[in-house]
Each structure stands twice: as C-alpha cells, then as structure tokens.
C-alpha cells in the first residue's frame, strides 16, 4: 500500500518537474550537460560505462571490459550495443556485439577489430584508456540459439566470433546439455580471437567441440564441406557473403528456421563513376521509393517522382532540404565531398546519388 502511494507521489512529482510550465528551469539538455560536465558517469541519456580493462586479443583486436552504471538494463548473450564516440568534434555511432555473457558483477565486454581506414575502430584502439567512459545505447538484437534438444552449430568468421563468444559463455554458464560444435574461420593462428579461452573450454567441457579453419594455410573456407551443417540448430556470424551462403543452403534444404544469422557490412562504396547511371532511393520514414540519375540532384529527382521534400534556396545555402542519409554514397556537387558513412547529413538540392541510397525522408 505504502509503496504504491510512494510510487504515485513519485510519479506525480516527476511529472510536475518535467512540466513545460517550469521551462527553462527543467531544461533537460542543460541538466544533462551539467551532469556530464561534473562526471560523465552521471549522464542520464544513453548508458555510460567505464573502461575497467583493455585486453589485446590479437595484434589487431582489442577487448574493452566495461562497467556500466546501475541504470544499465542488462543484456542477453548475442546482443549488440551502439557505441557513441566523439572524434575530432564529430559524434559517430557504431554497433559492436557484446562479447561477454551477462554476469553477476554486471561487467560487459566489447571486442573491436581494427579495420584499415575505419575511423571508429581505429580511434577506440588509439585513444581509449583504462578509466575512460564510453557511451552505449541500450542492448538490442535477438541473435541467440533456439531452445530445444538438437545439437548446436556455431559458425563464425573473423570478428564475427564476438557475439558467439558471448553465446558460448552463456551456454557454459548454465550447463547446457546439448552437443555444441564451434567452427571458426580466420586467416592465421595469430588472428584467432579468444583462442585461449575457447581452447580451455574445449578441454574442460565434454560436449563442446572446437574446429578452426585457417584460410592462409588451408585455403578458402567452403561452408558446403561442413558435414554437420544442415543437421544442427545453426548460429552464423561473419561477413555478409558467408551468412548469405549459409542461409541459401538452409533455404534450399527447406530448413530455413534452423539458422539464425548476423552479418556486418562495410561501407557502401560508389559504384564506378556513375553520372549516367540511375540508383534507387528509399525514403525510410515515408516508405517511398524514387529513382535518381547520377547527374540529377536528389531534390529534383524526388520532385520528378512526385515527392515534395522541404526545400528553400536550391543552391545549398539554407539547409532546409538537409536530411540524414542512412546508407549509401552521395556526392556533394558544390563541395565535391563524398559521403559514404552511414547516418551523415546531406543537402538534397546539391547532392547526387553514387549508389543506392536510404534517406530519412
């Protein structure tokens, strides 16, 4: 009774505190800025997490052990978070799988492979030190093995091992009785992320079998040679080429529901010097689609297709037509800048498509 009364009082009070009649005293942005300025762990937006430890897994891969605040909602093995970092004044967001299963001490781990030319992974490797604070989103994703008695196949390539490591830890923690085959593919033994941990598990856990394919010595990994493939509940994580291959095989065998996959795709690079080519543009907010030629501004192309995006000067000055490009590559005709990273702002009136695009329109 008292708790519910307390709850009511608390809810009422917080509603009063957030009322627009008190603005600007309750300006949420200002209070957030003040809290973060005093201590980044006091942020009430996103989920701040302190870096407790940094582990070199391979020459180009590092794990960051993180301790989030009490507000952290908890995660399930196989989920990922969006990490927000600020690089030279610019906020950038990237998804990383959590490579650890939930533990009682509420520590998290993300494992980052340094990709040549990639801004965020390189920055995390170079700039993050023990004691720093990273900003995480809430965990998302439903990448986890199905319940049941069928044996499990975990298949990963390269840094695709990260969510599967969390899955393996979770299966081991709860003593899952199923037979588990873990197949991992990487270039050389030094590129094998989590090698020691997985070997220890394989030695002490009878129903866990580890197989590693080194492509530098054994050649390209061919998923069709995996005899257990279609007989197991399968989780696959790696480059899109691998996951698509596996999905196609399961689809052909009529057992598509036995596979779950997660893939990472790099940047969508421009497809040639395509001024004459046409590209599909998907407006994800309104679910409309139009075609844009490589030599026509996106604004003109959208208008020609009957759409009416907000616009003003049409010469790149006023930014009325600015919108977020979720994916794809666009060229700014005024500055010559190429935008190929996801979630960058582009001005429709002076931008042309250089690949299929997804816009927040």
């Amino acid at each position, binding site marked *: 009774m008292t708790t519910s009364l307390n709850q009511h009082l608390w809810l009422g009070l917080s509603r009063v505190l957030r009322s*627009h*009649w*008190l*603005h*600007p*005293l309750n300006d949420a*942005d*200002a209070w957030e*800025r003040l809290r973060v*300025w005093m201590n980044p762990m006091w942020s009430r937006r996103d989920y701040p997490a302190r870096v407790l430890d940094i582990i070199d897994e391979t020459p180009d891969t590092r794990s960051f052990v993180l301790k989030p605040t009490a507000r952290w909602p908890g995660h399930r093995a196989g989920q990922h978070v969006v990490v927000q970092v*600020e690089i*030279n*004044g*610019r*906020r*950038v967001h990237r998804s990383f799988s959590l490579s650890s299963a939930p533990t009682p001490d509420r520590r998290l781990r993300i494992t980052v492979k340094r990709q040549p030319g990639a801004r965020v992974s390189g920055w995390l490797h170079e700039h993050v030190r023990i004691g720093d604070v990273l900003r995480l989103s809430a965990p998302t994703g439903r990448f986890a093995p199905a319940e049941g008695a069928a044996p499990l196949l975990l298949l990963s390539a390269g840094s695709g091992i990260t969510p599967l490591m969390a899955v393996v830890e979770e299966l081991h923690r709860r003593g899952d009785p199923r037979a588990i085959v873990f197949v991992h593919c990487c270039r050389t033994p030094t590129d094998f992320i989590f090698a020691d941990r997985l070997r220890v598990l394989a030695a002490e856990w009878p129903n866990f079998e580890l197989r590693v394919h080194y492509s530098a010595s054994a050649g390209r990994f061919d998923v069709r040679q995996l005899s257990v493939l279609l007989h197991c509940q399968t989780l696959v994580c790696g480059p899109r080429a691998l996951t698509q291959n596996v999905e196609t095989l399961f689809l052909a065998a009529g057992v598509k529901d036995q596979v779950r996959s997660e893939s990472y795709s790099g940047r969508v690079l421009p497809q040639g010097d395509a001024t004459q080519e046409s590209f599909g543009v998907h407006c994800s907010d309104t679910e409309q689609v139009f075609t844009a030629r490589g030599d026509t501004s996106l604004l003109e192309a959208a208008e020609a297709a009957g759409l009416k995006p907000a616009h*003003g*000067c049409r*010469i790149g*000055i*006023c*930014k*009325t037509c*600015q919108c977020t490009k979720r994916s794809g590559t666009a060229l700014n005709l*005024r*500055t*010559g*800048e190429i935008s190929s990273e996801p979630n960058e*702002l582009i001005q429709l009136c002076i931008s042309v498509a250089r690949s299929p695009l997804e816009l927040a329109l």
Partner: protein
Amino acid sequence: MNDQKLSQYPALPPGSTMLKTKLTPQQLDQFQAELDALRSEVAADLGERDATHIRSVVREVRLNAVVGRGLLMFGFDPISFIVGVCALARAKILENMEVGHNVLHGQYDWMGDPTLNSQKYEWDIVCDSGHWRRTHNFEHHSYTNILGQDDDYGYGLLRMTGDQKWTWRTLLQPIWYALLAIGFQWGVAIQDLKLGRWFKGRMPKGELAERAAPFLKKARSQLYKDYVLFPLLAFWNFPRVLLGNALANLIRNLWTNAIIFCGHFTADAQVFTKAEVAGETRGGWYLRQIQGSSNLEGGRWFHLLTGHLSHQIEHHLFPDIPAPRYAEMAPRVRDICARYGIHYNSAGFWRQYGTVLWRILKYALPVERRPRLVDA
C-alpha cells in the same frame, strides 16, 4: 543592365554604382573558384576546436543567465540589479547571436550533436526558429539586398535607398526605426506573418492564422518565462525581476538591431534589382553578397558579442561555416576582393552605424526618387 536602360535613370548618387564592380564571365568563374577553394579548405579543417568553442559559449550563456537571474531574484541593492541586468542581457545576446543564429544556419550540424542541430534548435527570443529558418536562412541569404525579394531590406517599414517608394509616412521613419530597434525581437518575430500582404487583402483567408500559430506559441512561452515564471519565483522581489528582465530584453534588442543594421545598410552597401540578378551564377551570387554587406572592426569580445556578424561579408559568403572562422578567412577574402577590384566595405562600429542612421534620416525625405520603384 545595359547602357540604354541606365540612361532612363535620373542622376545616381555619386559612388553607388562606382562601388559595383562588374566582372567578365571568365573573371567571375575564377573569382568563384577562389572563394570555393577557401571554403573547402576551412570546411576540411573543422573539428575539435570549433566544437569546444560553441560548447564553451553555451556554457557561458547558461552561467550568465543563472548569475543574472540569481542577482535579480535574490539581490536587493542597485548594484546587484545593474550587474544582474547586464549578465542576463549578455546571456541573451550571446545565445541569440553566437549560438542561436549560427546554430540555426547549420554551422555545427557536422558535429552530430542533437542539441546543436539547425533543425532542432530553439532559441531564447520570441521569433520562432522555424520562421527564422525561412525568412532569414532562405529568403534573406538567397535574395540578399534584392529589392522586392529581400524583406530584410528595410523590413517593409524603412526607406533605405532611392529605389524604394517615398510616401508621407516615410517622413516619420526615424520614429519607426526607433520603435523597431526597441522592439526588435518582435519585429523579426512577425516577419514571416507577411502582415503587409494581409493589410492589402492579398492573403487568402486562414493563412494568417496558420502563419501566426508558431509565433503565438513561442511568444507565449517567452513572455511567460520572463514576465510570469521568474518574477513569481522571486516572491516579494517580483517587480525587480520583472523590470530587470524587461531591461535585459531591451538591451539585447537595441544591440542586435544596431549590429544587424550595420550588416546591409551602411553607406557603401549596394542594392540590386531582380533584373540585375537574372541568370546569376554562384560567382555572381558571391559578388552580390560582398557588395551588399559590410563588416565591423573591433576586438575579440566585440566580434563574439555580435555573433561574428561583424564579419557580415564572410558570413554571407559562407553562412554554414562556423562563425569564429570568419576572422581567419577575412584577410584572404579581402585579398581576393583587392585583386578583382571589388570594394570591401569595412570600418569601425560607430562609423558604420553613423552612416546607417544618416541613411535613415536622409531617405525619410523625398530625395533620389527614381522611376522604377519598389514599396518601402
């Protein structure tokens, strides 16, 4: 404009066309390429420094507002009243000029910070930011100083050039100007209502209500904040807070008005006709921005308090480049102008503002009335 057309005009005031440099199409292209290159160079260099600057100004705005409002609320002596008013006025000036105006131009959109995003920011002034983006970012910055298209030229109230129509009420324009300066935030707030069209009955029914809705909402919240909420929180001190807030708003109005009028109404700032700008290239647009704008010279603090509109020329050339960069770009722009023989209009504040006030007085009289007239 060809010679035959030019001859239809009565004698032009000396200087006014001399200051309009004409470039050949080739020169104009080259001129455009040089300014484009300067823009690209600075845009590629944006980073940490600019982010730190704008965040520190936001912090300063909040600190000044807290100190100013605190002194007004809890003080009881005239000194804390004066300091409180100044701090609050400073907060409002910095917020409107260096943060609001510049953020709304999209100068900091590249940071990816939602609190500094041009489409989301709402500023501490009665002008709705959506209205501002249309009347200022689009209309004023695209059609700068084109008579009949740039409503900022005289605000539909003042005759600042002989090309604008003179009527008997123009005689009283020094008074109109004083009223506009005192209530400047209200002047810009109602700009997008297009009351001129409404008075003449040229606006479809219902359009005014639609246009006024965001303005009324914004005005209500601003009036409530400064004249209800904060005075009430001060209990018995409420008259003091009420008066202090009104004075802070007045100081901000007078200051922003003076700075903004120096941007396009100084003696040498040129006006353009629709015919003149037909078929204008980006180089031509750059040229018009330079010839229609004027700079103010001063120290670092002066530039900051003007939101770097003291570099009006650079701002009009590169409206989406973070404003503190204008100071670095100015010598290069000046050098480019010198090489193309383009007049670069720059002087101290009092000198420039003096010429603005002189124009207001001079054109109140029926001088330089020309055949092709545009409504004042």
